[in-house]
C-alpha cells in the first residue's frame, strides 16, 4: 500500500472530538453536571443540552419498569460511568492474533473474510478494500442527497433536522430507559432520505465509518421524506462483545406521505455464559411514526444475544392507509430472558398492521412475546393480523405470550393466531433414520419455523441469520 493511502486510512477522525477525548472517562454516577459535561464534550448546541436536562429531570421522577417477565438484580444507576469516551478497539496486526474461539464462530457463521478482520479488530490498513467500499457508498449516497452519518455529526452539521424530529416519536418521558437515553445518549446513526428518493442500496451500520463502539446509550433516527424509501440494516451476525452491562438504545423512525422504511436488525450481543453469568441487559425503545398517508414502516428483528432483552419495536399508524409490520425471531438459550414484541397503534383510517413473531426457547431460558394492538376510534376500517408461534427445545425452557388487544370502534378487524410446538425426540429420530444428524435436523426445523420472518430479511442477512440460529442452539438438543 502506498504511503498516501496509508496516511489517508490512518488519519484521525476529521470531526475532531473523538481523538481529543479519547482518554476521558467521566466519574461514575449521574447528575446535571455529568450531562453538561457530555454535551460540552460534544460541542452541542444549547437546545440539545436543554433536551438532555429536561429528559434527566423526567427520568428522576420515573420508576424502572417492573412489569416485564424478566428478573435481574436491581441496577445501581449511580455505579455506571455515563461518559466513557468511545473506545478505539485495540488494533491487531494479523488474523493470527485473533482469539481462535472468535474465528471458529466466524467460520460457523460464514462471515466474509474482510468482514471477519474488521470485526475482530485487525488493523484497518489490512482491510483497505472494505474502507474504499465505504467511501464509494458515501459518494453514491451524497449524489442523491441522502444524509447518512453518525448522530454526533448530524447534530453539528444538520442541527435543524435533528431538532425538528428528535424526541417527536419517542418523547423523553415515554419510559424509564428512553428518558435515561435522552439524557445521556452518546452516538448512533442518523439517516435522512429526501423527497422522492429511493435509497439505491441497503444502509448498513457496518458501512458507517465509525470504528469505535457507539457506546451503551445509542440513539438512531431515520427520516424518510414524501415518496422516499430506505432499507436499513442494524447490527451484524458476528458476536458483539461489550464491556458495558446495560444498553439502553432509542431508535426513532418517521415516514412521511407515501414513504417506506424497512428496518432490519440482527442482535447478537454477548448473552452470558451457559450458567447465566454476565451478558448484556438490552433495554431498547424503538418506534416508527407512519405520519403520512400510505406510508409504511416495517421492522424485522432477529434477536439472539443479550442476557436480557426488553424491546418492542412499534408503529404509530397516524396517516390514513398507512401500514405497520413487525417480523421477529427471538432465540433464547441457557439462562437468557427475552420479553419482546411490538405495539401497533392504529389512528388513521384504513390502517393495516401485520405481526409475525417466532420465539424459540432452549436451555433454561424464558422467552415472552408481548404485543399491543390498539385501534383508536378514528381508525375506521383498520385491520390487524397477528401470528405468534413459540417453539420449545428441551424440557427446562419457557415460552409465554402476552397479547393485548384494544379496539375502540366497531368497524375494524383484528385476528390473532398462536401456537406452541416442541422439537421432539421423535422428529430427530425420523431425521436420523434418513441419515441426517441432530445438528442438521434442528437447523432445518428451526429454519422452517422462522421462514416467514427470514423471507423479510435482505438475502445476505438471511443466510447469515440462518447460520446464526443453528449456532446459537448448538448442543441444546439431543
Amino acid at each position, binding site marked *: 500500500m502506498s504511503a498516501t493511502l496509508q496516511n489517508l486510512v490512518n488519519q484521525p477522525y476529521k470531526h475532531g472530538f473523538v481523538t481529543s477525548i479519547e482518554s476521558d472517562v467521566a466519574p461514575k454516577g449521574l447528575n446535571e453536571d455529568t450531562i453538561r459535561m457530555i454535551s460540552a464534550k460534544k460541542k452541542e448546541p444549547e437546545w440539545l443540552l436543554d433536551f438532555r436536562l429536561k429528559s434527566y429531570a423526567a427520568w428522576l421522577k420515573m420508576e424502572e419498569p417492573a412489569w416485564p417477565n424478566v428478573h435481574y438484580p436491581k441496577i445501581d444507576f449511580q455505579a455506571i460511568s455515563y461518559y466513557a469516551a468511545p473506545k478505539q478497539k485495540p488494533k491487531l496486526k494479523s488474523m493470527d492474533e485473533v482469539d481462535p474461539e472468535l474465528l471458529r464462530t466466524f467460520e460457523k457463521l460464514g462471515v466474509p473474510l474482510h468482514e471477519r478482520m474488521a470485526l475482530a479488530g485487525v488493523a484497518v490498513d489490512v482491510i483497505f478494500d472494505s474502507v474504499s467500499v465505504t467511501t464509494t457508498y458515501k459518494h453514491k449516497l451524497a449524489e442523491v442527497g441522502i444524509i447518512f452519518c453518525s448522530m454526533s455529526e448530524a447534530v453539528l452539521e444538520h442541527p435543524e433536522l435533528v431538532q425538528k424530529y428528535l424526541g417527536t416519536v419517542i418523547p423523553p418521558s415515554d419510559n424509564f430507559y428512553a428518558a435515561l437515553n435522552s439524557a445521556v445518549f452518546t452516538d448512533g446513526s442518523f439517516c435522512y432520505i429526501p423527497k422522492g428518493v429511493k435509497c439505491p442500496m441497503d444502509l448498513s451500520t457496518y458501512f458507517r465509518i465509525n470504528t469505535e463502539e457507539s457506546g451503551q446509550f445509542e440513539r438512531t433516527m431515520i427520516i424518510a421524506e414524501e415518496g422516499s424509501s430506505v432499507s436499513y440494516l442494524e447490527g451484524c451476525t458476528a458476536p458483539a462483545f461489550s464491556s458495558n452491562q446495560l444498553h439502553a438504545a432509542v431508535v426513532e423512525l418517521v415516514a412521511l406521505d407515501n414513504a417506506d422504511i424497512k428496518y432490519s436488525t440482527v442482535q447478537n450481543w454477548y448473552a452470558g455464559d451457559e450458567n447465566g453469568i454476565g451478558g448484556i441487559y438490552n433495554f431498547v425503545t424503538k418506534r416508527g411514526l407512519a405520519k403520512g398517508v400510505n406510508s409504511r414502516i416495517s421492522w424485522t428483528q432477529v434477536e439472539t444475544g443479550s442476557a436480557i432483552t426488553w424491546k418492542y419495536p412499534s408503529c404509530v399508524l397516524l396517516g390514513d392507509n398507512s401500514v405497520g409490520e413487525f417480523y421477529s425471531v427471538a432465540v433464547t438459550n441457557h439462562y437468557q430472558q427475552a420479553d419482546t414484541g411490538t405495539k401497533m397503534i392504529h389512528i388513521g383510517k384504513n390502517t393495516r398492521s401485520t405481526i409475525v413473531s417466532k420465539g424459540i426457547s432452549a436451555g433454561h431460558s424464558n422467552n415472552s412475546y408481548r404485543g399491543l394492538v390498539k385501534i383508536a376510534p378514528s381508525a375506521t376500517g383498520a385491520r390487524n393480523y397477528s401470528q405468534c408461534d413459540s417453539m420449545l427445545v428441551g424440557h427446562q425452557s419457557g415460552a409465554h405470550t402476552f397479547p393485548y388487544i384494544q379496539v375502540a370502534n366497531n368497524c375494524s378487524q383484528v385476528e390473532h393466531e398462536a401456537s406452541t*410446538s416442541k422439537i*421432539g*425426540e*421423535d*422428529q430427530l*429420530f*425420523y*431425521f*436420523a*433414520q*434418513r*441419515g*441426517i*444428524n441432530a445438528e*442438521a435436523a434442528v437447523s*432445518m*426445523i428451526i*429454519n*422452517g*419455523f422462522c*421462514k416467514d420472518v427470514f423471507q423479510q430479511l435482505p438475502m445476505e442477512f438471511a443466510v447469515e441469520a440462518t447460520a446464526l440460529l443453528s449456532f446459537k442452539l448448538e448442543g441444546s438438543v439431543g
Partner: protein
Amino acid sequence: MIYQDSKILLEVRGLCANVSGTEILKGLDLTVRSGEIHAIMGPNGSGKSTFSKILAGHSAYEVTGGTVMFEGQNLLDLAPEERARAGVFLAFQYPIEIPGVGNSQFLRLTYNTVQTHRGKEELDPLEFDDYVREKMKLLEMSPDFLERSVNEGFSGGEKKRNEILQMAMLDPRLAILDETDSGLDIDALRIVASGVNQLANKDNAIVLVTHYQRLLNYIVPDYVHVMEAGRIIKTGGKELALELESRGYDWVGAENKAAARATA
C-alpha cells in the same frame, strides 16, 4: 426371492432389550439374506415394532443382550444416522410430521446425505426435482406433495406413500416396513405394495412387520415368522401366513409350549 448365492445381510442372535425397565425382546434370532422378503407377524405387544425400532437405533430402547450384525459390522455400535447411511431403512408405522419443513427440501437433504456417504455426486435442486418426480410416478403421487411440509396434514395413506417414496430414493440394502399396511385402503395398499415389489431385487432385503395377512397377498414373502413375547417362535413359508389368518395366533404359542415341554 431366495437366491442360491445370496449373502447374509442381517444376523440377529439372542437379542434382548428393555424399554423403561420392562423387558420387551427376550432372545430374538433372525437371519436375513440378500434378495429375501421376510414377514414378521404376531399379536399386539409381541415386540414386532420394538424390534424394528431397535434395528433403526431408537434411543428409547436399551439393548441388554445379544448381537446384531449388518453386512459384517456390528449394527449396535452405529448411531441411528450411521445405520441409515449404511443402508438400513425403516418405514415408520406413524411417520412424523415436521411443520414448516418443505417435503422436497427434506427429501433432497436426506438423498444427498446418503449419496455423499456412498461417494456419489449430490444433486442440485433442479436435478433432484427431476429425479424425485420420476420416483413419485412409481407411487402414483401428485407433485404437490413436494410443496407441502413433511407429512403435515397428510392422510394416513399419503404418509405411507411418502415413506415408500423415501425408500425408493434411498435404495437401502435392508428395508424394514413397520405396519405399512395399517390405515391403507385397498387402492393405496395396491399402489404401495406394487412400489415395494418394484424396489425388491437380489441385492436388497425387505422385512415386513404386519398384523394381517392382507399385505402378503400383494407382497409375497419368502419367510413368515411368528413373534410372541419378544421372540420368534415359529418360521415357515408364505402358507404360514394363511394358516395364521384362519386359525389366529394362539395355536402357535400352544404348539411352542408343548415343544418346549417335550425337550425339557
